[in-house]
């Protein structure tokens, strides 16, 4: 590819040559091959749309050669671009082969020109953007923002159903409560039955069931009531089982019980 004599016959000013050399030495300063190409394109001093891609390709390839001479290691990207530009150059120089498929040399050149123009445009846009007034540098936000205090307000609701259920719950619990809470003051029917079963065998005479109350359960009215009820219920159970007889002579008269002599069938 270097056998193209025009590469060295380019009508370049000294300034341009120096610039080209500087490019090579300063290869680290470029952001990739496209950036380098864009810089080279500037030396053509024409509108990017009218740029000679052929010229540019030659210039780039010369750059790569020069870098080799100076033993400067080029990143792979630069070499890929060089290979492609060499290919492009040959396409542009040779008459088009009608049998060959793919884009023409002109298409490829146009695309490269487009890429350069677009990169240039983005550079300018970036510069314009950074030239704008900026927050914290040219214009400012409130220096003393006021804190938003978060107030969490909780509202409570209840429905009439909740209310009534709540009430029903208390009422029923209240009545049920002695079962668990007042175990000390409750004489259960089972206890009364046990007690009566042990004692009934000795009760040949009619005896007031009050006398069967366990000791210590006749003082406190609550305990007395519980023991009386349990004993009465137990006595009914004994009657039902056929072990005892029970009688009450009058309304509110003492309830009396005695052993049944001959158990019923």
């Amino acid at each position, binding site marked *: 590819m270097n056998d193209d004599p025009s590469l060295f016959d380019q009508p370049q000013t000294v300034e341009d040559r120096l610039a080209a050399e500087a490019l090579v030495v300063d290869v680290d300063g470029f952001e990739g091959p496209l950036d380098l190409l864009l810089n080279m394109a500037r030396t053509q001093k024409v509108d990017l749309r009218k740029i000679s891609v052929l010229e540019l390709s030659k210039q780039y390839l010369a750059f790569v050669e020069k870098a080799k001479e100076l033993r400067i290691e080029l990143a792979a990207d630069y070499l890929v671009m060089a290979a492609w530009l060499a290919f492009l150059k040959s396409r542009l120089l040779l008459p088009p082969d009608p049998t060959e498929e793919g884009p023409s040399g002109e298409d490829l050149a146009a695309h490269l020109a487009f890429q350069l123009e677009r990169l240039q445009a983005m550079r300018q846009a970036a510069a314009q953007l950074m030239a704008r007034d900026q927050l914290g540098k040219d214009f400012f936000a409130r220096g003393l923002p006021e804190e*938003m205090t978060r107030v969490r307000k909780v509202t409570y609701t209840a429905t009439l159903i909740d209310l009534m259920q709540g009430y*029903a719950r208390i009422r029923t619990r209240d009545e049920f409560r002695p*079962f668990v809470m007042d175990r000390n003051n409750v004489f259960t029917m089972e206890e009364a039955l046990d007690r009566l079963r042990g004692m009934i065998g000795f009760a040949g005479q009619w005896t007031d069931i009050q006398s069967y109350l366990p000791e210590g359960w006749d003082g406190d009215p609550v305990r007395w009531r519980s023991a009386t009820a349990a004993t009465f219920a137990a006595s009914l159970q004994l009657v039902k089982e056929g072990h005892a007889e029970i009688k009450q002579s009058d309304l509110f008269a003492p309830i009396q019980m005695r052993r049944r002599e001959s158990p019923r069938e």
Partner: protein
Amino acid sequence: MSDDLQADGDETPRESLFEAPPMGEQERMVEAILFASAEPVSVRDLNDRMPHGCDAAEALVHLRKRYEGRGVQVTKVGDAWAIRTAGDLGFLMQRETVEQRKLSRAAIETLAIIAYHQPCTRAEIEEIRGVAVSRGTIDQLLEMEWIRFGRRRMTPGRPVTFVVTQGFLDHFGLESARDLPGLAELRAAGLLESRALPSGAPQLGEGDVDLDEETDEGQSELFED
């Protein structure tokens, strides 16, 4: 509201030895500095920061007038100046999140007892519920304006009583607390589930005792508060 200010605010030409900016400009500067500064700024600092020949004190007078009645105010903080939210708009600086919660069981029960037994003392509530009533519960109901203080009981200690409020009646759609259904009606309405007693359990008290299915739950709750 500040039409009268427009005239002298922006254009008044001022004579100054130092060709200070017009007062309208100075006012803009003070406005921008007070706005952007992280702290209140003294007149001296303002003058230091503004171009030579400016009179920050005078600009402040204009600026202050301009903000009269606005959403923010130019206010003096110590010997410095700042822009602050107008006092009446402080509520905008609070983000209020309203959360709706169900009233606690303790509160509902307390409320129910007051409604059914009003006027009702705290001791009575505790007697009926079988547990102490926490101050918070009563306070909450008072704050919700569902209950209020009734007349003091003419008994030793003259304890306060609680009654339900009109707000309570409105909320629950009741004409009066007397309209609350009784136990029998609650049962009829299915709010009280009738259940057979566990066999062998003694049936104490009046005949119409119903042990609803909540008993267990109820028991454990006894020790809740």
